[in-house]
C-alpha cells in the first residue's frame, strides 16, 4: 500500500539548503520563484482541464512536477507525476487531480510564505 501523502511533510528543504548554503536571501528568492512558477502551473492545469487539452495538461503537470521535486515538495511532486502520467484521464478525474494538487500546493505555499516572512 502506498503511504498516505499526509505521512510526509509538505516540503523537505534538505537538498535545497545544501544548494543555497543556508543563504536566507537566496532561499527567499528561490521560494518566490517557486511560488510564481507554481501559480502559473496551476493556472495552466486548470486551463488545460477546461479546454480538455491533454498535451497542455501533461506539459503543465510535468513542469510542476519538476519544480516541486527540486524544491523538495515531494507529495506535490508525486501528485503532479500522477497527473502527468494520466494526462488522458477524463475531465472528472482531472478535476479530482486538480483538487488534490491545489490542496497540497496550499500547504506548500503556506509553509513557504511563513519562511519568507521569517526571513524578512
Amino acid at each position: 500500500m502506498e503511504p498516505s501523502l499526509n505521512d510526509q511533510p509538505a516540503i523537505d528543504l534538505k537538498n535545497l539548503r545544501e544548494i543555497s548554503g543556508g543563504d536566507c536571501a537566496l532561499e527567499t528568492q528561490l521560494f518566490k520563484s517557486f511560488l510564481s512558477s507554481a501559480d502559473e502551473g496551476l493556472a495552466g492545469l486548470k486551463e488545460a482541464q477546461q479546454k480538455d487539452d491533454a498535451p497542455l495538461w501533461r506539459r503543465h503537470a510535468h513542469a510542476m512536477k519538476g519544480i516541486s521535486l527540486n524544491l523538495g515538495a515531494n507529495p506535490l511532486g508525486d501528485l503532479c507525476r500522477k497527473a502527468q502520467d494520466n494526462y488522458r484521464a477524463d475531465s472528472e478525474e482531472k478535476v479530482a487531480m486538480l483538487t488534490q494538487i491545489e490542496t497540497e500546493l496550499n500547504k506548500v505555499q503556506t509553509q513557504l510564505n511563513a519562511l519568507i516572512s521569517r526571513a524578512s
Partner: protein
Amino acid sequence: MQWVEVMGQIISEHTSFTPLLALIDRVLQEQDTRHLVLIKREYLRPITNEAFMVAIRQILHTADIADVFFASERNIYLAWQGKRDAVFRNLRATVSANLLRQGLTVEPSAVLVYVDLATTGTALRNSIQQEAARIPSDGTETDLPKEQIAIGEEDPDESQTDTDPSSTLKATQEQVRIYKEGSRQKPYRKHLHMLVVEDQLFSQKLLCEILRGVRINNNNESPVIEAVEEMQDAWKLFLKRSHDIVFIDLGLLDGSGHTLARAIKELDPNAQVIIVTANNYEEEQEVARQNNVDAFIAKPFSRKQIIDCIERYISNTRSQSKGTWRGTLP
C-alpha cells in the same frame, strides 16, 4: 565582465550613458545575454523617473537582473536577464495601459521595441554615442539626430519558432566554422562556459546557483553561465559560444531536449551534454543513450551530481590538453 549574475534580482537605475554603452559592449563581446527594449519617450505622459520605476518595478522583479537607463532624451532603455517573452509582454501591457499620453492612439509595437543586440547592437551603440555627444553637461538636448537608427526590431510576440525540430536545428557553414573555432579554444579559455536550457525559472535558478560556485582556475575565476528557456535560443547560442557543458531539460517550450542534445552531439561528438529532467523514465534514458549524452540526471538534482559531471569533464579535458586546466571544485 566575467559572469552574468543570474541570481541577483537587482533592479538598477542609471542616468548616464556609460553603463548602457558598457552593457551593449558586453553583449557584442558575447559576455552578456541580457534582453533590451527601448520605450519611446515621445509617446509617454510626463512622468518622473521615480514614478516610472514604480510602474514597472513589479514586472522587472520577475527578471533576474534588471537595469533601467534614463540618460537618453529619446528613449528609456530597459535591460534584463531572464524570461524574454513574458517580461516583454508584461512591459508592453503596462506601458500601454498606464504610461501613454492621454488621447494617444498608437500601436503598442511603436512605443516599446525589442532590440536584438546581437545583430544591431553596433548600430544602436553608435546612435547612443552620437546622442551622448549632442547632450551638453546640463542635460539639455541641442540637436536630435533626424535619421532613425537601423535597429533590428524583433518582436518576440511575432517571432514564432518552428515547432518541427527536423526543420529547425540546422547550422550554416559559417555557424559551424565559428563553433569549431570556439571549440578549439575550449581548453585554453580562462573561464568555463556553461549553458543551462531550462524553461522553469525556479529550476533554472537552482541549477545556476550550483554552477556559480564552480571554480576551475587557481585564481578563483568564476564560470560564465548562460541560461535560456527555449531550444532554438539554446542552439543559436551554443553555435556562437561553443559552451564547454550544456545542461538540458527535456520538456522545453518549443521542443524536446532530446532534439537539442542530438543536434549538439551530431555537430560535435565531444561536446558535453547533460540531460537534467523530471522525466526519469527508462524510455527517456534510452533515447538519451542513443544520442550519446554524457549524463542523465533526474530531478531533484543535488549539488554533488552536478559537480561530479563538471569534474569529469574537467578531468577529461585536462588529460587531453596536457594539463591546461587546474580544477578546484567545491
